[in-house]
């Protein structure tokens, strides 16, 4: 869908201004106003929005999908896409739930969950880089394979483990310094990704590969390793999300996180990361995740019909991309 367009598009020359914009600094400030406006509207029409318990709930919801959206951002920055994250969450989820139910130690469950995510992500990366399969196709395949794996492992049944591991619940349900633990996990992931993207060679390579893979190759960047790296990270973060989600739900369902990939893509795109690669960043995605979650929360608080909610959500995604395209055209016309 986006991949072919991405490869054929010619990105703008990297001026100082566009470098700043790439880092997401300028766009992010615009998104803050959008988010603030939404919050003001929400508070005016439904003052309960600002209740601490609602804000905590919104923060937790943002975090749960946001972790995967951070990985998605790094993938999309290379002009790729990862459709397999929801299925990877399901595979890691049912395996970890099965282990917990069998009474295995929590540290081993955590390691296995993260390893499953990283491994499936690495497989995506290897086939995309060495097999030259377009990311859309490879991760679409992995999405179907992963869902099938999750169904096979669980036999199609939800895997309950409530009795087996009460202490595991802290990861998804607990609080630390007044904030839900998943929010801390999200902030840690986002801060790490921000640091990597801005201050490490790997991070700069991600932008370079996304802007112009040929130029990146000619300037000595290992394009293959960079692309492999982002899919590995995306898979790893899906494994992490699986741990947080099953801890919160106390069950590993093979249907877990169905459609998560689309939510994560929406959060990334609304956050201003270009599907053509090379532009955007983590701060935008944090705001994008917050905007998507606050919107859903508002619509539920207002009592908007679920069918109308879908229409509104769709409009917002299209509007975000329209705005992005308009901005790009205006810039390239200069």
């Amino acid at each position, binding site marked *: 869908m986006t991949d072919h367009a991405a490869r054929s598009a010619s990105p703008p020359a990297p001026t100082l201004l566009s470098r700043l914009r790439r880092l997401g600094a300028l766009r992010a400030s615009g998104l803050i106003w959008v988010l603030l406006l939404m919050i003001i509207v929400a508070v005016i029409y439904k003052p309960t929005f600002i209740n601490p318990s609602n804000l905590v709930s919104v923060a937790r*919801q943002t975090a749960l999908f946001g972790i995967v959206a951070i990985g998605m951002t790094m993938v999309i920055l290379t002009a790729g896409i990862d459709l397999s994250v929801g299925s990877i969450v399901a595979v890691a989820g049912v395996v970890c739930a099965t282990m917990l139910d069998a009474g295995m130690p929590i540290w081993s469950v955590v390691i296995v969950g993260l390893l499953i995510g990283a491994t499936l992500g690495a497989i995506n990366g290897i086939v995309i880089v060495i097999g030259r399969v377009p990311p859309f196709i490879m991760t679409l395949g992995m999405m179907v394979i992963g869902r099938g794996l999750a169904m096979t492992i669980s036999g199609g049944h939800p895997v309950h483990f409530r009795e087996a591991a009460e202490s595991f619940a802290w990861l998804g349900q607990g609080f630390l310094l007044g904030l839900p633990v998943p929010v801390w996990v999200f902030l840690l992931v986002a801060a790490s990704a921000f640091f990597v993207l801005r201050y490490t060679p790997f991070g700069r390579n991600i932008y370079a590969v996304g802007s112009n893979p040929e130029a990146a190759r000619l300037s000595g960047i290992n394009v293959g390793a960079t692309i492999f790296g982002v899919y590995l990270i995306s898979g790893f973060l899906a494994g992490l999300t699986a741990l947080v989600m099953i801890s919160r*739900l106390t069950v590993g369902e093979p*249907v877990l996180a169905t459609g998560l990939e689309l939510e994560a893509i929406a959060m990334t795109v609304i956050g201003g990361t270009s599907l053509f690669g090379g532009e955007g960043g983590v701060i935008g995605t944090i705001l994008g995740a917050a905007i998507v979650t606050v919107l859903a929360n508002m619509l539920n608080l207002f009592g908007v019909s679920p069918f109308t909610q*879908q229409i509104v959500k769709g409009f917002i995604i299209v509007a975000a991309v329209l705005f992005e395209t308009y901005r790009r055209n205006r810039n390239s016309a200069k």
Partner: protein
Amino acid sequence: MNTLGRTVLVLTAAALLAGTASVPTIAQDKVKIGFSQGTMESSWRVNMVERNKKWFDENIADKAELTITNAENNASKQVTDVEGLLASGIEILVISPVTADALTPVVKQAMDAGVKVLTLDRSVNTPVTSHIGADNILIGNTAGKFVCELLGGEGTVGEIQGVAGASATVDRHDAFNATIAKECPGVKVVADGIGDYVREPAMRLTEDWIQRFPEGELDVIYAHNDGMALGAVAALEAAGRLDDVKVVGIDGEEAAYQAIKDGKMAATFTYHFVAPEGMMYAWDIAQGKTLDAKIVLPTAQIDATNVDEFLGTGF
């Protein structure tokens, strides 16, 4: 036939017979039954197969032979499966089709060839020997009546719907709302959301509703399946609102029975597995009994009063 070979489970009764040597062996040929399952990608479908097979093994394994195929939610594979079963000479075809339209021609072909056909849960567009299924309208009505009684004719309900537009969702929604409107107009559905039959979205939706409705303003959450009901329970429990909001589900998941036993859920309504009835009626047909063209299986209401009888029977 190659693809068939991969997925077919042939159950020979030889081992069972060997174990019960005192039973006089009947020289007569065994009745060949084929069971074509459309998909096994849900707990409920897996149970449909497992429980029919269990009844078969325990009751008629010495008198009949059962072949089970799984079409993996692929209609054209199911057509091939059925053709394979017919070629193997089955006398009775038990089928739960992926879609009515795609499977109609091959089922008609089976009927024309004199094979008795029993459709389970989903039907086809051609006359068959008999159709057996649960009825979502009946379930929606029963759930509506229960909520009326639970609230004493006055109160508020939040409804968590399944996949929007799916026939089960439409029936569970329409029948429930129609019953409420007729039997207890004082009960209002004040919130409505979509949970896609999955726990996580239902939990998020409930978290938002907990914020929208202060204590005492939402009395019941009616979820279109138990997974979503349990998601609602998890959110309510975390917010300390479980005493305030009662949760009702559908399907009959074991975890829901446990939640009812623990006082966390008010009730659930079973959606019949069509098992072991599928095999029982197939055996009736084999013995020459005539069945009604359509058999509707009942739904059981499981609440605090009778949950002990059901613990251990859910999925």
